């Protein structure tokens, strides 16, 4: 029981939005309109998260990922269902909950725009009441994982997007929270910064045992970090299991590449539930000479794309 840091039971979140009309006349109508529409951003989602996990929380745009994270952090109240984060109801106990979580929301920053990063850290250390020694240790750990020097004395407003994102992630882990929520933390980063940030998240998870909930549209993040993934679509949970499982769950796809007599490569995606590799090769051999073959596992990216596109699910 104590191993479960987040428990969500049948959580739903609905937004009531005005049905807006077009044009000037429409806008004036809207002033008096009572014509509301209900959006089900999260629809009856249950899940549990165990201590120390890194979970990839995936889904197409508008699926309800950010909404779920806002519910978990306590800035949104669920419309129905129960949620416990470390035994607390986050929306009722937001301030207490905040002490034990770290949050990065992609394009927002929690840092002080005009302060050098080190001053922001200093301030965070004080408002989260981090003991001096723990703070020093954390900075040491950061130094061992990334090159801090170029950013530490820069005001946040002078940072590049990648530097700021890096800073925000470091800030989220600074008070050594039990759980860190990362909502699209790698958006807009170059490949090397992405790699560094992944390494950092993995390192902190390993060293500190931090539970991480990560939403992203970059399957590279998922492959690099997550053992378990949860997928939601239109507010409903459609998958919750190991990443390995995913590939077989939605059809065990592999790509067969064959080099033919004229040295050209042909590719075929094979669903092993329907047919098998040997069969395809035999068929091919009836007409062509095959000089070489390669067999590739399908990438997470392709599987996810099939799922988002409502492709063949099991």
């Amino acid at each position, binding site marked *: 029981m104590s191993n479960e840091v987040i428990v969500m039971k049948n959580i739903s979140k609905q*937004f*009531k939005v005005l049905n807006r009309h077009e044009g000037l006349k429409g806008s004036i109508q809207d002033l008096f309109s009572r014509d509301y529409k209900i959006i089900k951003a999260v629809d009856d989602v249950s899940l549990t998260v165990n201590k120390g996990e890194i979970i990839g929380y995936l889904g197409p745009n508008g699926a309800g990922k950010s*909404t779920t994270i*806002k519910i978990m*952090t*306590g*800035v*949104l*109240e669920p419309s129905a269902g129960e949620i416990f984060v470390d035994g607390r109801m986050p*929306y009722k106990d*937001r*301030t*207490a909950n*905040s*002490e034990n*979580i770290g*949050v990065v*929301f992609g394009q*927002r*920053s*929690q840092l*002080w725009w*005009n*302060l050098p990063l080190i*001053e*922001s850290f*200093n*301030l965070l*250390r*004080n*408002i*989260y*009441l981090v003991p001096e020694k723990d703070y020093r240790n954390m900075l040491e750990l950061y130094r061992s994982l990334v090159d801090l020097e170029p950013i530490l004395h820069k005001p946040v407003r002078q940072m590049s997007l990648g530097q700021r994102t890096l800073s925000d992630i470091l800030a989220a882990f600074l008070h050594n929270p039990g759980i860190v929520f990362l909502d699209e933390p790698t958006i807009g980063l170059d490949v090397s910064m992405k790699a560094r940030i992944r390494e950092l998240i993995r390192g902190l998870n390993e060293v500190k045992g931090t539970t991480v909930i990560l939403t992203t549209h970059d399957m590279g993040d998922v492959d690099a970090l997550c053992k378990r993934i949860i997928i939601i679509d239109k507010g409903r949970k459609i998958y919750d299991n190991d990443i390995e499982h995913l590939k077989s769950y939605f059809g065990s796809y592999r790509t067969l590449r064959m080099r033919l007599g004229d040295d050209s490569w042909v590719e075929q995606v094979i669903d092993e539930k329907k047919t098998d590799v040997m069969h395809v090769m035999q068929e091919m051999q009836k007409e062509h000479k095959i000089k070489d073959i390669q067999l590739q596992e399908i990438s997470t990216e392709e599987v996810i794309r099939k799922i988002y596109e409502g492709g063949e699910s099991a």
Partner: protein
Amino acid sequence: MTGLKKKTALTRAGIIESLQFRLSTAVMLFANLIYLALVYFLWKAIYDSSGVDVVNGMTFYDTMIYLILATAIFNLLEMFIVWDMSRAIQSGEIIMHLLKPMRYRLYTFWSYSGAHVNNFFLSFVPTFIVVVVITKGAIPIGINLLYFMVSLLLALIVNFNIEMLVAPVCLYTQSTWGINIVKETVVLLLSGASIPLAFFPEGLRQAVEYLPFRAVYDIPLTVLLAKNGTDSLSGLLPKLGIQLFWCVLLSVCGNLFWNHAVKKITVNGG
């Protein structure tokens, strides 16, 4: 006191942050000069046309001292909570404030405190010294300064609470600009910041007695200038009592209103 550490850390950061805007202090002083020149000529005209030296118990000299110090307090207390909050709500940045491990109102108050400290030392104290030197003895220097500090602190809390009562209105309407103008005008007029309360018509003056705005300018200035017997405890305590009363009442109301308003964010998603 663990809570104190969080607060002083916010004050310290606020001081560092506002020190970076060196230019804005200069601009503020310049704007004050223009404003005070205007005030000077306006009141000069009023006194000249009245034909007497003492109007409503105040000489021209008294009035000028009062208004200069009122301006200095205005600069000290000025907060932009209405703007800042509405911007934070529109951009969604407010979420990051709500996720700090401190109650939002407390967090906001202490976030501004550093700017107040700066304004006190960089703007109020120099202005005060200049006025003292120029007027040579018009302002009593004694225990009243200590009393004034207490009164000023209470004024600051009352002012903060007024701001925090007005700012969340932007969650219900979009017209931040209008709200802010109304607040600014009402506070400056009814607090005695732009016209000393002594000049108010009798009916309005009595009405203003029962409003909180007086606690922001009129009371601290009265205490500073040691008027109305406020240099003795028996004269002082009732005044501080009024300020304290408004601190408590407004902060209770502000709390209730904020708890209601914040639901707009946590329930409707902003």
